[in-house]
């Protein structure tokens, strides 16, 4: 995970209210756009944040509308550059391993949020906050991480020859 110790460039505090989702999407989309993500990517990043907030509202706060939550944004330098988004709440803590995407072949209403978040973002990590509540850290890179950094099979084959 990238360095979370520096202060976020932008941090939003809000209540657990669905009617605020549209404003958050507008904020997220514009931040992503500024960082160079294309229109489809901006839409998908906004969607991932929307899904994560819906989960905090419905599961974390059990649809109560007076829960507090925070969304923080960091522009990531490096190659490839990217965007880190952290969502924190004061809701009940659960075992991060229980937050799982479901089998998509089982077609039923609901159960898509975590799948969407994992599909859209490059790195997704749930954890308990030391104080209280949960923290979700999501990273999206501007381009796929360079293949050169992964074990490169074609080169290995050449070496073996």
């Amino acid at each position, binding site marked *: 995970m990238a360095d979370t110790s520096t202060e976020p460039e932008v941090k939003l505090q809000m209540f657990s209210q*669905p*009617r605020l*989702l*549209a404003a958050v999407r507008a904020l997220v989309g514009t931040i992503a756009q500024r960082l160079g993500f294309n229109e489809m990517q901006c*839409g998908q990043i906004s969607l991932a944040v*929307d899904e994560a907030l819906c989960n905090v509202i419905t599961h974390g706060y059990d649809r109560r509308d007076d829960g507090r939550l925070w969304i923080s944004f960091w522009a990531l330098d490096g190659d490839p550059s990217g965007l880190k988004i952290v969502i924190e709440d004061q809701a009940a803590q659960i075992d991060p391993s229980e937050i799982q995407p479901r089998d*998509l072949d089982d077609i039923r209403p609901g159960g*898509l949020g975590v799948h*969407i978040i994992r599909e859209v973002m490059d790195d997704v990590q749930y954890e308990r906050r030391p104080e209280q509540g949960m923290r979700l850290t999501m990273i999206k890179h501007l381009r796929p991480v360079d293949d050169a950094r992964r074990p490169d099979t074609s080169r290995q084959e050449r070496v073996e020859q």
Partner: protein
Amino acid sequence: MSKAEELQIETDDITDGVVLRPIGEIDLSCAAMLRQRLSQIQDSQPARLVIDLSAVPYMDSSGVATLVEAMQIARRTGSKLILCALQDKVRSIFEIARLDMVFAIVDTVDDAAAL
């Protein structure tokens, strides 16, 4: 913010059913309203229910869940449920959820009436 839900929903009768046309973004703040309207219409068991999404620029999984539920009701009652005119961003969530092959999705309301 104290304003009422922003989603508007229009309906139109066609020969063998109904066209439902939501106007606005569909997220957790208005999915319940869409759900209620759909179940109202499905109570009258139309042979064909066309959902025209041309005026829906955005949908999250609470909207998708509502449509999956409507599709299951349609299957049970033997009626046709058809989605049409999805904008790119909305199509994208159906693809991510791998539901683009599960729903009947066509380009226009006319296509949906002919299906």
